[in-house]
Every structure is written in C-alpha cells, then in structure tokens.
C-alpha cells in the first residue's frame, strides 16, 4: 500500500520550477533610495521590526512589558502616516523608485548603461550616510534645467563631500530613464559637482586620475580632486609637465603628492594657478587601501576601478568654451579626447558594436576607416553608432588623431547615413522610418544631462508634442520617436542642452 506522504508527493502541483530573475530583488533593495537619502536606518529592518517575527509569549506574561513597545509602535505609525501623507518635497523625482532598475551590483560592461543605485552605494560610503542640511542644499544646488511644466529637475539625491579652497564638492546621483525623461529607471549615474555656475563645471565619472577645478571669481584658486571608492585610505598622485608646456605649475612645486581620502574624495588644494598656464598632468595614481594593498594606475584610459566603470580624464575646460562653435576636433583629436568626452568609448566592445563595425566597413562612402565603433542607440527600427577614424593612420600610436562620425542605419530599409560629429549644440538628426515617422536623435557628450527640442509642425501632428520636449540623454544620446498622424512635415527648433550646475542651457546657434 502506498504511503500517504508518497501519494501526496505524487500530486505535487509544482514538481520543479525555474528560478525567477533576481532583478526584482535588486529593485526592491534599491527602492528605498529616498529613505536612505533621508537617513532612515539601512539595517534591513523596517521601523526596527524584524521581517521574521520572534516567538511570542503569553499575553499576561508580556502584559506591562509590552506597553512601552506598543507606545513605540504607535509613535512609529504616526510617523509613517505623516511620512506617507505629508509633503514630498524631499522625494526622488517621479519614476525614480518605480522603474526597473538595471540588475545587480557592479557595472554592466556590455550595454554601456550606468550602475544600479545599489552598486553605486556599495562603492561609496558617502552616498550611504544620512543626509545633512548641506546635502539637501547640495541637491538644490545641483538641480538643472527647466522642465516642460516649468519645473526644476532635481537629482535623486546628493551628498556634500566637502570644500577645498572655497570650492564646494558634491556627489550627485541621477536616475537614468529608458525613454528620455519619462520611461522607467534603467540605471543611475553619479557625477561630482564642483565650482560655480557656468564655470568650473566638472562631471567626474568615478575619477581615478585627478581633475583640476578652479574658481573663477574672487581669489583664484584651484584644486585637484578625485573620487575614490571605499577601502582606499590614501591616494598618491605623481605629476609631470607636458614637454611643450610653458609655465607648467606643479602642485606645491612637488612632483608627488599624497592625499588622504575623506568622504570618498581625495582633494589637494593649490593656492593659486595663473590663468593661461598649463596645469601639471598626473601621470600615475596609486591607491593605498586599508588592508595594506595598493594599486597603481598609469594609463587614464584603461584605469577602471571596477569592471566596466569608465575612467575619467584629467583637465577640462569650462563648458562654455568646450561647446563654442568652431572649438572642435575638425582636424582630428587624440583618442583620449574622445574617450574623455564620450563615455560610450570607455566601455568594452560588445556584440552590437561588432554588428555596427560590419555595417560601417561595408559602406564604401565612409570618409575614414573606422578604428573604434560603439553603438549609442539600438531600437527595433534603427541602429545609431559612432566610429572613430584616424586621419593619420600611418603615424605612431601616440600621435594619431581621430575624427568621429555618427552613423544611423534604418533597420527596416537598410539605408545608412553618416554625419561628422561636430562640437557644440546640435540640431537632432533623424532616421526616417517610412510613413510611420522618424527617430530623431542627438549625440551628446557626457556632461549633457538633458536636451530640449521644440517641434514645429502644422496639421496631422499626431503624437508630436507642441510644447518643448525635454529628453534625458542616456549613453551619449537623446532621442525621440516622432509619429505624425498623417502626411505632414515637421522640424525641430529651439534646441538646448542642459548641463548640471547650469541654470541656463546652452542653445544651438540660430
């Protein structure tokens, strides 16, 4: 006779099943970003209550002893109710917690997306600490742009890491949305805000090699700064002057500087740098860790602190100068130039890039043979990618110069077009999708966080918005799928690029 338990086992409704995705776990762990940002404890317990209740005693035995606990619970309930129903001015921007956060800790090196919030917070203790008034002020300071509804866009949260030479330095975390500003959150990005509005802007994507920041007004001063992950106690920078540079200023006249790390930040203040002089370049960086180990980086383009994380170059000029018309790489720029400005070139090649390489190589009209190819946009309808081609391929590696070309392939038709990637604020390009509309896109450097386009169309505009369209740039591209309802023509005007720390956007030349 069959045992009852065996018979029961035979009717097991789910004998086996596939494991679910861990994405949902990361999403839930990432979700309380604003709780963390606002200083609630992050010890895995909500309101001090264990998710697994402890064994209960008898009511009488618990009696009086539980009264203080009950009072505490009542207070917690009131706090929760107030928190839920009260003003939400401190909360993250909409969509920040509800979207599908890109899974897992660490950077995904294959798709060029940024890290998840948990991955960021896992590396930088300064992001995990409770916020202070200075942090809240930093969040306001690092707001940018004016949204479509006249609203200021705030970062998810910010941490004020310190001041050096009077220059405030903030860690700023933003959510990246899948479809510009409105889609679900797919990843997060972090930047380091330092300096004053319109100048001294710096976006430090996980800097290893230090960047120079200078004040423009008041007593002039500069500082070298670098973001450093947890576990690094001291950073040592070795500087050298470019051979062709005149008046190169070494920090404190020394070639080697050791800087203690505080709040994930290594900062070395320099009393004064004369305008027009060359700042000394750091040629090597050494991280000395708490556990006694050390790592030395000698190539700023290959130095990545974590798998897939982009390295940050040294030395940037102010955005107003960088994006001025005509101030660009028309005659070719070193590879470091492109890698320092377009994060897409700092990630490893993946399968999509190889597909794009094949497409670019098959185009006989290409101006230069592509040396480096990276996809910036891959939809069901279009593939947009950038290639770097050397203008002097016979030169030595160190002397080669590259121009960038933006390619767009319409997948349904197979048609391809290419344009030079020129500096400055650009009108969007488009990939015509036949009668269904077009994909309008614009390739932007790392420090452009959003772009604004004003569509103009007359009749049959379909889903083409009439108000200015604000799009978040992601993976060096901002795009919009324009779907008119009938035969009509439309154009884009009033193009603006928004950079963090700048209230006023940079606008395209009329």
């Amino acid at each position, binding site marked *: *006779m069959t045992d*009852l338990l065996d018979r029961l086992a035979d009717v*097991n409704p789910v004998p086996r099943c*596939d494991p679910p995705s861990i994405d949902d776990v990361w999403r839930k762990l990432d979700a309380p970003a604003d709780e963390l940002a606002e200083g609630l404890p992050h010890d*895995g317990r909500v309101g001090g209550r264990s998710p697994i209740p402890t064994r209960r005693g008898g009511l009488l035995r618990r009696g009086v002893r539980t009264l203080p606990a009950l009072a505490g619970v009542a207070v917690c309930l009131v706090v929760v109710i107030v928190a839920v129903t009260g003003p939400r001015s401190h909360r993250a921007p909409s969509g920040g917690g509800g979207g599908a956060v890109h899974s897992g800790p660490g950077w995904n090196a294959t798709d060029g997306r940024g890290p998840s919030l*948990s991955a960021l917070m*896992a590396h930088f203790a300064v992001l995990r600490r409770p916020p202070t008034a200075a942090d809240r002020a930093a969040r306001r300071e690092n707001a940018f742009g004016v949204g479509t509804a006249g609203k200021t866009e705030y970062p998810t949260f910010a941490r004020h890491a310190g001041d050096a030479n009077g220059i405030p330095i903030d860690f700023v975390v933003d959510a990246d949305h899948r479809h510009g500003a409105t889609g679900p959150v797919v990843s997060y990005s972090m930047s380091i805000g330092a300096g004053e509005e319109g100048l001294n802007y710096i976006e430090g994507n996980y800097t290893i090699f230090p960047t120079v920041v200078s004040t423009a007004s008041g007593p002039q001063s500069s500082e070298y700064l670098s973001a450093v992950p947890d576990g690094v106690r001291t950073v040592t920078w070795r500087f050298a002057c470019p051979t062709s540079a005149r008046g190169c200023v070494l920090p404190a006249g020394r070639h080697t500087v050791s800087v203690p790390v505080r709040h994930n930040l290594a900062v070395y203040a320099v009393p004064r740098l004369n305008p027009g002089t060359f700042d000394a370049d750091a040629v090597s960086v050494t991280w000395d860790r708490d556990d006694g180990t050390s790592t030395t980086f000698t190539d700023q383009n290959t130095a990545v602190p974590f798998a897939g994380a982009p390295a940050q170059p040294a030395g940037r000029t102010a955005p107003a100068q960088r994006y001025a018309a005509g101030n660009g790489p028309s005659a070719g720029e070193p590879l470091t130039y492109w890698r320092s400005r377009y994060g897409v070139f700092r990630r490893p090649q993946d399968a999509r890039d190889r597909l794009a390489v094949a497409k670019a190589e098959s185009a006989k009209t290409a101006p230069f043979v592509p040396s480096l190819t990276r996809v910036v946009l891959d939809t069901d309808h279009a593939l947009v990618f950038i290639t770097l081609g050397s203008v002097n391929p016979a030169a030595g590696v160190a002397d080669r110069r590259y121009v960038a070309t933006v390619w767009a392939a319409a997948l349904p038709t197979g048609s391809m077009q290419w344009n030079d990637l020129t500096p400055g604020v650009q009108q969007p390009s488009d990939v015509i999708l036949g009668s269904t509309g077009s994909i309008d896109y614009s390739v932007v450097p790392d420090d452009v966080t959003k772009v604004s386009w004003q569509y103009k169309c007359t009749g049959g505009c379909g889903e083409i918005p009439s108000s200015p369209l604000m799009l978040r740039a992601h993976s060096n591209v901002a795009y919009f799928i324009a779907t008119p309802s009938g035969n009509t023509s439309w154009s884009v005007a009033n193009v603006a690029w928004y950079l963090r720390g700048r209230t006023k956007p940079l606008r395209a030349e009329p």
Partner: protein
Amino acid sequence: MRDVDRRRQLELLFDEHAAAVRAYALRRIDPASADDTVSEVFVVACRRIDEVPADALPWLLACARRVLANQYRGARRRVALVDRLSVAGDVVTRPDGEDREALLRALDSLSEGDRELLMMIAWEGLDPARAAAALECSRATLAVRLHRARRRLGAALEEVGVSSPITSTPMEAVK
C-alpha cells in the same frame, strides 16, 4: 559585513535556492504573487544575511511562510487549495483526475498547521530535521505533529470516499 559582500552572498544564495523558494510559493499562491513572495524573501535574506544558517533552505522557507502569512492576512483571502492551485494554470498537472482532487481537497480540509507540515515534507522534500527547522519546532514535536497530521489526512480522505493507509507511529513518521 560590507554591502557589496552582502549582495555577493545574496547572489549565491539566490542561485542556489530561488527555484525551491519559488516552487514553495507557487504551491500556495498564484504565480504573480509567488514571484513577489520570492523577491520579498530574498530582500529579507539580504538584510539579515548574517543570520542565514549554512543550510539556508529551511530558513528561507520559514521566511517565505511568514511572508505568505502576511499576504494572506493583508488581503484577507482564503481560497480553497484546489482553486488556488488551479490559478497556477500551467504549473498544475492533473494526471490522476478525481483521486488527485480528492487528495487535495482532503489536504485543504486540514488545519493550516497540519497542511503546512505535510506539504513541507511531501512537496518541499525536506527531511524531518530540516522541516522542523523550517517550521521552527523541535524534531520530537514535529514527529508527533506529523503522525497526527497523517492520521487526520487519512480520515479526511476516507470522508471523501478514498481509502488511505494509516499505519505509522510517531517514530515511523520521522524515520
């Protein structure tokens, strides 16, 4: 423990046990809620990773049991087991027709404690020691409870007209 280590450990835990936890949940709740339960369980595990024992599955199932209990309480839903399982659709196989349904209805007529105990052993495949850990009781207690649960299940089966073998003693029940 650093957060990055905690998450790395969670990934290992998830790889090893997520399927079992999901199956546990699927046997008790609809698929959508089951996936939600799984993620809840591993969120708890991440936050309490230091407390997860080396043999993690009973701990995780105990956690899943609590999460499900909260869900039941919260939604105030109490649907018959057969109906709950039928919601699962493609994951439910029905090879035995009426006998199978009778067995499930008999199981559903038991108290929650008896039912959970029988399912933990027959469906989750835990041996008595691990089932005791999952149900947070001693092994001796579990032996007695299991003996009684089997007897009650047999009685319930006879009530619906299906013969059942009731032969075990408490010690046999845990052998």
